[in-house]
């Protein structure tokens, strides 16, 4: 088997294990390329049946409109259930402090909404599109990652995960995060998108956009959440997004990639990692991701 066939088969196997082992699983859908691949894999795993789980989206309110439109259209086309919960509502209900600063991030806040939606529907497994090549703490996580009642990851207490035998047994109140494409790299994802002709939101491809050029050289798009001041350097460039997170903490990269093939050659050439190129939040500390995961983040 070709390596993409092997990665695909592994992911389908994991998705079916989730379906077989859990009563109330959910697929966390963000509108990004990784979760779009997950949906594609779920089609292969379960059609002609329905998905044994709903798609769940935690809407931070800072999402790109293109990603939201894509999400709604996809759920409709597939005729699968979509549950959306809003960080905005959580902030109001829990009287939380919204993100502050020049680029007000809701990255930390979305964990509250996620834990609430897990509790609301009593989800016992949440499937996510995280990959081990994204970040050094993720590189340490199991495919079936057991979380306690508070959604917390304890790296010292990970269950051994041997062969392809996945132990998803948990007590009530706990949940398992499942990562079927753990072993895929960014390039694998794009090669797969190409092979399978998967349609993506337009912001993955080059387009003209007005951006703020930040001090460390990142291109942050101008939007209603970011207050401009006179010192801001505003530029208009041909850019695309390598990851589709919040507008407030995901930066664009300069690009002339019109097609998936262009993107593949671009990624092969680039010297900067996906996170390094696009995320502002992980630069803060060396263990930012580990700490957020310990707090219940994906």
């Amino acid at each position: 088997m070709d390596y993409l066939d092997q990665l695909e088969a592994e992911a389908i196997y994991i998705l079916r294990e989730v379906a077989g082992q859990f009563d109330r699983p959910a697929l966390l859908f963000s509108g990004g390329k990784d979760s779009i691949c997950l949906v594609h894999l779920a089609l292969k795993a379960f059609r002609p049946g329905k998905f044994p789980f709903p798609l769940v989206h935690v809407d931070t309110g800072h999402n790109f409109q293109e990603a939201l439109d894509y999400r709604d259209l996809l759920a409709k086309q597939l005729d699968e259930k979509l549950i959306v919960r809003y960080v905005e509502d959580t902030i109001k209900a829990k009287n939380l402090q919204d993100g502050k600063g020049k680029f007000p991030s809701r990255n930390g806040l979305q964990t509250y909404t996620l834990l609430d939606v897990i509790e609301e529907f009593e989800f016992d497994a949440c499937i996510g599109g995280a990959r081990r090549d994204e970040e050094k703490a993720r590189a340490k996580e199991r495919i079936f990652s057991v979380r306690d009642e508070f959604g917390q990851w304890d790296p010292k207490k990970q269950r051994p995960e041997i062969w392809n035998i996945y132990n998803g047994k948990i007590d009530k109140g706990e949940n398992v995060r499942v990562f079927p494409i753990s072993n895929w790299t960014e390039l694998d994802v794009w090669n797969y998108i190409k092979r399978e002709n998967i349609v993506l939101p337009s912001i993955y491809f080059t387009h003209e956009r007005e951006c703020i050029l930040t001090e460390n050289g990142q291109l942050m798009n101008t939007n209603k959440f970011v207050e401009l001041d006179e010192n801001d350097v505003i530029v208009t460039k041909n850019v695309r997004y390598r990851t589709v997170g919040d507008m407030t903490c995901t930066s664009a990269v300069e690009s002339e990639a019109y097609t998936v093939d262009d993107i593949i050659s671009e990624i092969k050439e680039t010297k900067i990692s996906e996170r390094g190129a696009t995320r502002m939040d992980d630069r803060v500390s060396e263990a930012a991701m580990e700490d957020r995961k310990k707090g219940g983040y994906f």
Partner: protein
Amino acid sequence: MELLRFFTAGNVDDGKSTLIGRLLFDSNSISTDIIETLTRQSKATGNDADIDLALLTDGLRAEREQGITIDVAYKYFTTEKRKFIIADTPGHSQYTRNMFTGASNTDLAIILVDARNGITDQTKRHSIISSILGIPHILVCINKMDLVNYDENVYNQIQEDYLKFSKELNLKNVSFIPTSALTGENVVTNSENLAWYKGASLFEFLEQVEIPHEEENQDSRFQVQYVIRPQTEDLHDYRGYAGSVLSGTFKKGQEVQIFPLESKTTISKIEQNGKEIIEASAGESIIIHLEHDLDVSRGSTIVPLNQQIESEKNLEATICWMDNKAFQAGQKLILQQNSFRTKAIVKEIDSKIDIHNFSEIESDGTIQLNEFCKIQLKTAENISFDSYKKNRKTGAFILINENTNNTVAAGIIN
């Protein structure tokens, strides 16, 4: 393009993480922003070298603070020829279960030996585990050659010692490479200092080593993971058994037997990705349809009628105990083999395996963390299996503690 999975093993500080870091660094597989971060961290940890490459895989705060690997890290790189999945495992004996996790489904073990120390207990332990797991290739990297003046005699002596010790282990395909992970010699590029060594560098070795596809030629096994029943108007009677071909091949029209039921039927249809296919082979995820309406559910095993599989309640197995709490007689366990689960109890502990020389010693009735034992198990329902030697997919299982839900042991069926 092919996929090769390998892991690194060896004693604490033999240089496993450094070797992986070096391999990725010298093959230009690390992004510049990651290199910047590593350089910054290396300064902070007071390392002499400009960049401590072990930090690439030691991704947890505790690991960076203590300078050791605690849990497996997975890393990836791709060359023109292959995609590699690397499991960098801890060398500390306390974390043997994590090493076992990383090693379990790989094609190749890289066992590091510090050239100054030669074979250690951990070298032996990890070689024995590789032998138990049936890892198809063993590559011994005799590392830190820079600290023994690149002496060929040191290398030859260790090679001889290793072959002598491992004679009993039935290791398949053992190879040796002298390296210095720190300087990068013989990792990706060859080295002047090691000019006496004429073989491949580690990188070349990885690109060339033959990837075994044992399961393709073994007897055919399929296990049901999930039953697809849309129950819609137009698919009212649709009943598909979703799962993956564990080994061998399955064909439309093939007569099969379902275990543990032991009832016979015929494969009426095979589907993959919404399309009907005629034949499916090892590794493929498919949906099987059967001619008769039988009580087939998650965990049922499908086998061609003209092939045999064991199906019974008594098993002889070798297990590695992975729970902090020692085994307690009478403990209720759940056995899981792929998607099949049944209750199980340990009837007898036959012997303990001495991890230093692979000999069997008498059991004192206990099983502690990281110990290997030969045991007799009794299951509540019939389990269909092959010996692990015959089939790595149907001969392996885990044991789960019914109270804590933890995976407490990994087992292979003898």
